[in-house]
């Protein structure tokens, strides 16, 4: 007989970035409460940015999140350059694309190996895996370190990159650096193959709920991550400057919570959304892995977000190698290296402006928006992060999932709920703005 009364309260959900609780309450066989609470202490980033120089925005907003610091960096730079009217050079764009590839790789690998794999292998964390699956743990750490080492060469470090700033790069890689980065990434290929083998043998929970998926879209042939319009699987396409029309923040009656929605009650962003919208543009190596994993667009099983992340890992690895191979032939133009600081030397013209950055970061589309005054100081700032856009969708998923699994034990229900939330790779540290907070 299925469970009639159930009360689940997962305080401080583990193996996610930041602090969140899951609250589920079933009474007489009916689901009464189903909430994902965000309990991270607010940090007020947007408020703190007011009055700071636009040239400090990247440094400060990178600190919103240590896991996707490069993603915040790129969205921040794009918004600032948009506000100031700076058009980056082709070389700068290519280097930024490599940085974003590395960000995806690094973050997805962390999620796949350290946060999700323990569930699929039936253990509480990676710690018991050190003895039971030593080679797997070593491979994960080795791959993570490679991403980190390449970032060290490209931007000084992965956690809070140093040289990628408004206007370009304060340090550009030399010939030897390009070769080293290339060698490190090519050297990752066998480990990537092993990773694909491992994940393709694991079984993801079966579940499905149709929803609207939102991601960057573009007209060229490249899988869009760094720039593009904002598109959805329900046929929406808007310019990034209209981001407020995408997120449509609204307040839920009977609660103080703000949410985002587009064509339906909620939408999803992240690897699965990108996969569903831009599958055709993935590199052949990545498509092959999707096939191996049985992943096809439009996939509506949120647990498979982890599989989509793996497909993106393969894509980003090959994409970054491709750009580096080009640089090996064409060479880096070091005249483009810049010295900016707070722009004390006035090398970059400033103006009153309003700029938007829309970048695909590991967990989905990230928006930064800055308004500057005529001296280049920030008047207003707004950041909308992927996890805030996903929270509503996660709750709707839980509402469909729980009634379907009431024949399982409380422990199994709890674990499956945790796994569902974890599949989205929520990054609660990022919740600068906490659109979806709820209080019971």
């Amino acid at each position, binding site marked *: 007989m299925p469970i009639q009364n159930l009360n689940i309260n997962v305080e401080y959900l*583990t*193996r*996610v*970035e*930041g*602090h969140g609780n899951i609250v589920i309450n079933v009474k007489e066989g009916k689901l009464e409460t189903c909430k994902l609470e965000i309990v991270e*202490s*607010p*940090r*007020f980033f*947007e*408020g*703190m940015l*007011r*009055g*700071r120089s636009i040239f*400090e925005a990247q*440094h*400060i907003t990178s*600190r*919103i*999140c*240590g*896991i996707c*610091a490069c993603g915040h960096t790129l969205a921040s730079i794009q918004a600032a350059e948009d506000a100031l009217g700076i058009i980056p050079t082709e070389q700068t764009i290519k280097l930024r694309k490599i940085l974003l590839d590395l960000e995806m790789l690094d973050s997805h690998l*962390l999620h796949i190996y*350290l*946060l999700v794999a*323990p569930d699929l292998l039936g253990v*509480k*964390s*990676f*710690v018991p895996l*050190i003895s039971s699956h030593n080679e797997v743990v*070593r491979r994960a*750490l*080795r791959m*993570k*370190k490679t991403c*980190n080492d390449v970032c060290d060469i490209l*931007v*000084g*470090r*992965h*956690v*809070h990159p*140093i*040289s990628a700033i408004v206007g370009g790069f*304060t340090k550009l890689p030399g010939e030897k650096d390009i070769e080293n980065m290339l060698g490190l990434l090519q050297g990752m290929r066998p480990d990537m193959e092993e990773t694909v083998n491992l994940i393709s043998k694991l079984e993801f929970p079966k579940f499905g709920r149709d929803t609207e998926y939102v991601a960057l879209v573009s007209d060229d042939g490249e899988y869009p991550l760094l720039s593009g319009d904002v598109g959805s699987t329900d046929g929406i396409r808007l310019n990034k400057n209209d981001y407020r029309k995408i997120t449509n923040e609204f307040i839920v009656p009977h609660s*103080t919570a*703000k949410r985002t929605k587009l064509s339906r009650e909620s939408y999803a962003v992240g690897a699965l959304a990108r996969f569903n919208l831009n599958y055709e543009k993935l590199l052949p190596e990545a498509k092959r892995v999707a096939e191996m994993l049985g992943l096809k667009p439009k996939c509506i099983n949120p647990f498979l977000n982890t599989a989509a992340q793996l497909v993106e890992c393969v894509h980003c690895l090959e994409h970054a190698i491709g750009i580096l191979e080009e640089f090996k032939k064409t060479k880096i133009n070091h005249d483009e*290296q810049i*010295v900016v*600081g*707070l722009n*004390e*030397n006035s090398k970059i013209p400033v103006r009153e402006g309003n700029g938007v950055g829309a970048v695909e970061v590991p967990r989905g589309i990230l928006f930064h928006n800055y308004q500057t005054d005529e001296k280049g100081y920030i008047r207003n700032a707004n950041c909308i992060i992927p996890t805030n856009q996903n929270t509503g969708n996660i709750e709707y998923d839980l509402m469909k999932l729980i009634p379907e699994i009431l024949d399982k034990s409380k422990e199994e229900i709890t674990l499956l709920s945790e796994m569902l939330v974890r599949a989205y790779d929520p990054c609660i540290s990022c919740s600068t703005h*906490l659109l979806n*907070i709820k*209080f019971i």
Partner: protein
Amino acid sequence: MKKPKIAFFDFACCEGCQLQVANMGEGVLDVLAAFDVVEWREVMSEKWDKKYDVAIIEGSITDNHAVKRIKKIRKKTDILLAYGSCATIGGVNGMKNNFELDDIRKYVYGESYKFFPTEITKAVHQVVKVDYFVNGCPVYIPEFVTVLKAVLQGIPYYVPDYAVCVECKLNENVCMYAKGITCLGPLTRAGCNSWCINNGNICYGCRGMVSNPNEKSAQDILAKYNIPIELIMNKMNMYNKCREIV
């Protein structure tokens, strides 16, 4: 010797310093092998309800709830290590203290601001006793390893109290002031191997200020390059605002 029981806790922060541990690669396994890791929410579901030998604290203290939690941890641990700028000096969270708290709450959360209680940002040692400091945003892993060795040996670790410029000169960087821009290297504690300047950027002061800065010389530099003191003060308030709390 029994391995010390170690636990990681995060408060208001970006969790990037925890991530620095994972970025050590396979080497992290050797480091972890010296300890018995009993609690680490970001990567472990296991919990521990007994005493810790070492508690590593990331993040700053920004509300009542955090004050209670850090005091509880302090009672349960022999050694408490403040890890990263947010924990050691308040870090970027301190910028909040540049504003009236109600004003900044209303700006970010609008009408719902009352549901987001916050207090003046504090560094960990401004609330409980701290035994070891690992500065930096993010922490510099070679320094963290040195500190862990000191913990294992039961000896103190002293954060360098000379300026970043010392390391910067050894790295043969051209001075940022000579390039026409300002840098907080002369006021900031070394120990990061002048990480940011090596990569063409400036020092933002993330490791906290030296206890006895060369004020006379700093004034000469400001005069020489015609730099207003407000500009430097404003820069210092990015990471070091909490220094004003007594």
